[in-house]
């Protein structure tokens, strides 16, 4: 049986949106898929050695707020200084208490399972990012390189 392939494009750099590419990438690898993740725009944040990702309640009406906080802090209240830090800290605590893996752990598991990480060269330059801030084992490349793999992929996801 030929090995199945999964291609993922990761474009978001928030704590919540950092999970799907690493969860699906590592799980697919465990199931025997060959996996490549192409990180572009804000998704490049997921490759940094020091992950300092935040989750924001702003512009996110679907986010469950603890203790009815959305009633005390409607819309504008969510823009108060410190709100993002508070929501990030609450989310991290909640994840740890429910046995959800840390992003660092999932990312390591991906790399152990030979999931390939590709950083979009154009956006690295656009944001003046330093590739030495990224974890080891990252390939810098462009859109054509992504299609080389995605063209033969069984599943392609944009997130």
């Amino acid at each position, binding site marked *: 049986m030929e090995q199945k392939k999964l291609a993922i494009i990761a474009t978001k750099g928030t704590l919540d949106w950092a999970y799907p590419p690493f*969860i699906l990438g*590592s*799980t697919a690898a*465990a*199931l*025997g898929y060959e996996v490549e993740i192409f990180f572009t725009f804000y998704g490049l944040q997921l490759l940094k050695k020091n992950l300092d990702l935040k989750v924001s309640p702003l512009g996110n009406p679907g986010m469950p707020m603890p203790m009815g906080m959305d009633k005390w802090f409607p819309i504008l209240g969510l823009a108060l200084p410190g709100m993002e830090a508070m929501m990030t800290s609450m989310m991290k605590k909640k994840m740890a208490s*429910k*046995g*959800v*893996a840390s992003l660092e752990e999932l990312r390591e*598991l991906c790399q*152990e*399972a030979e999931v390939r990480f590709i950083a979009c060269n154009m956006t690295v330059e656009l944001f003046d990012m330093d590739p030495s801030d990224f974890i080891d084992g990252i390939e810098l490349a462009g859109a054509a390189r992504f299609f080389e793999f995605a063209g033969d992929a069984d599943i392609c996801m944009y997130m």
Partner: protein
Amino acid sequence: MADFDEELDASGLNCPLPILRAKKALAGMESGKVLHIIATDPGSVKDFEAFSKQTGNELIESKEEGGKFHFLIRKA
């Protein structure tokens, strides 16, 4: 519960960690050996069925006992 060769306690871990840890444990085992996995994540029941189907490692037993889920998987 039937005999097994190695055991993995994934209690308290949530999706996808039980599957990832099991995959890792199986990688270090010889073909034909049996891994016993203990998990508390209710989603792991369907996940181990799917894992077995897609990887060819046979799920010999799957049961709930004392609030925990137990799986026996034979390495292909």
